[in-house]
């Protein structure tokens, strides 16, 4: 919660800053009309562009790092990103109130129908969802069947035979498991339920997959921070959160059995491997949970930028395409430090090919 509101503050401050700076620039250029000859020459070659984007909260730390680094190299491009949630990001880009959208979950076809033009998914980075638990001193291994059983309420005690079979050496207590889930609609939930639905037909039939689902058991908490807090303070709790929150809060995280039969943790390499294991179709979005790659972490996902294939505004379209290009090349180096996983080289190449096809009135943007 705290981080989110702090983020919002920072955002508001950034937005206010952008507006203020923008105003100042305008007054300056209009005020210094006599000596405008030289300034205007610069403006003509490198037009000032200010972009607004909105959407997913999950990639926000990386996006804001990208925006600040990119802004240093390209002072003429100002980008304001508002992390208002994937669903809201999709609504905003469809309503064309922002220049680009961002979403953790790919757009559904019925959503895309409402848009006035063709929207393109641009995968930018990879994230993982981990299962954090509150059992001091226990190193836990889990598989999809067991997690399904716990979240459906079929497995209620930590010393259940199924969990014991996976963790023969651990001393599991005879206490209740408290499944903990995200109560707010979230991409994290979409990825987690995608993982369970892909691994278990029972889950698919009883609960299904989505940003908000009907949870049969457990406690709901708002935001990654909320789930983190509940897992931290509730003995026996088991909850799913984005990897970075578990690391920041030093929560124990379960090793998960992937479809190849190996137990893996959500390292950058394992998450990138998950993407390598799934062929990215030409739509540029794909589910990469339960990836068959031997070293892949099973609960991973792409996060996307959403842009119109036929840009409404040439200058803005160009700026977005260039920024995305930079993010897919130089930008990938910043991912690991912020607990994101870089895209596999093959994926980045494919996405760059797509960027080359973005256009405005028949003219390529790059």
């Amino acid at each position, binding site marked *: *919660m705290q981080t989110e509101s702090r983020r919002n503050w920072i955002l508001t401050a950034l937005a206010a800053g952008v507006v203020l700076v923008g105003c100042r620039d305008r007054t300056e250029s209009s005020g210094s009309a006599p000596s405008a000859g030289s300034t205007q020459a610069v403006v003509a070659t490198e037009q000032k562009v200010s972009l607004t984007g909105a959407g997913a909260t999950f990639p926000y730390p990386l996006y804001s790092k990208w925006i600040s680094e990119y802004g240093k190299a390209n002072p003429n491009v100002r980008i304001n990103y508002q992390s208002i949630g994937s669903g809201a990001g999709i609504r905003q880009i469809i309503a064309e109130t922002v220049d680009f959208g961002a979403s953790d979950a790919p757009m559904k076809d019925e959503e895309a129908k409402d848009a006035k033009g063709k929207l393109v998914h641009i995968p930018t980075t990879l994230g993982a969802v981990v299962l954090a638990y509150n059992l001091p001193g226990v190193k836990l291994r889990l598989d999809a069947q067991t997690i399904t059983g716990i979240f459906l309420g079929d497995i209620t005690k930590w010393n259940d035979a199924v969990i014991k079979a996976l963790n023969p050496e651990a001393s599991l207590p005879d206490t209740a498991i408290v499944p903990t889930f995200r*109560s*707010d*609609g979230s991409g994290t939930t979409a990825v987690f339920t995608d993982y369970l639905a892909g691994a278990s037909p029972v889950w698919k039939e009883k609960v299904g997959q989505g940003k908000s689902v009907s949870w049969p058991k457990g*406690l709901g908490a708002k935001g990654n921070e*909320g789930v983190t*807090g509940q897992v931290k303070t509730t003995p026996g709790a088991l909850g799913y959160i984005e990897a970075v929150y578990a690391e920041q809060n030093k929560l124990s995280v379960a090793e998960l059995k992937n479809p190849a039969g190996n137990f893996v943790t959500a390292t950058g390499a394992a998450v990138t491997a998950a993407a390598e294991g799934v062929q990215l179709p030409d739509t540029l979005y794909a589910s990469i949970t339960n990836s068959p790659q031997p070293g892949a972490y099973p609960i991973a996902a792409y996060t996307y930028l959403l842009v119109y294939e036929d840009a409404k505004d040439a200058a803005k379209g160009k700026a977005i395409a260039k920024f995305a290009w930079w993010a897919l090349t130089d930008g990938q180096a910043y991912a690991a430090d912020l607990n994101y996983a870089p895209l596999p080289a093959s994926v980045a190449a494919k996405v760059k090919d797509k960027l080359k096809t973005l256009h405005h009135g028949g003219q390529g943007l790059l």
Partner: protein
Amino acid sequence: MSIQAQRKPKEVRTSDKIFRWCTSGPALLLCVVLAGLGVQLLVSSIPSLKHFGVEFLLGRSWDPVRGIFGALPFIYGTLVTSCVALLIALPVGIAAALYLSELAPEWVRSPLGFMIELLAAVPSVIYGLWGVFTLAPAIREVVQPALASTLGFLPFFQGPQYGFGMLTAGIIVAIMVLPTITAVSREVVMAIPLTLREAAWGLGATRWEAIRFAVLPAARSGLVGAGVLALGRALGETMAVTMVIGNRPEISASLFSPGYSMASVIANEFTEATDELHLSALAEIGLLLLVLTIILNVAARALVGRVKRAW
């Protein structure tokens, strides 16, 4: 005298007119905002109203994946947490108000009153965080076992003890509405003429008897008013409740169980909802909350009126 005579009556009328407009405008604007809010919610709810009809009020299932939406668990959760909150906060708040106005020594009154009012200035997210990290564990370790072992025969205090749930949400809301109740009650009690108390003392009443038979009956309608204000806040409280209620749409007699409130589900799901029916169902929950608040306020006003007349 001469100044008044010099002033033209017309000028006075103009300034009065301006003043009238400056005050009646905002007053009217508030009504327009409320009406606009209602209309907007109603319009947004139309798809859900059409699709579910009355079933929406009675449905117990909330499943965004399958597009099934029923509001009953949210209505239940909202009413239960608000009731728990008022049951705790009303006696405590009125007692505190009586102490502050009747019994406390002069030098204690204003610092203590100030501190209670300060509680109202704490943002609700802070209460929520405190709820997650301090109150919920304390309730799980201390309050729930104690309640289960003493009053466990009642259905309200049974079942697994998570710490998060309707009881915790009720307690958090109780703390949050306490300053409202205390501040309003104190003003009400202090407004009661001293002569009433003096008359009671003159008849040989003790302090308690004077409060019981002279002050409280006179203050009754004002105290009900304090309760109404508190109820309004309790019904709409969102953030702190969301953080401790457990957020599962379930109707359970036990206060230990997780629940869900109307305001919470809107806060939780609105930003990520893209499906039209889902958005519309959330808007209808908002509409229901507005209607519920209006009904309860009207009922409470009627109650205040009756109490007044009775006295």
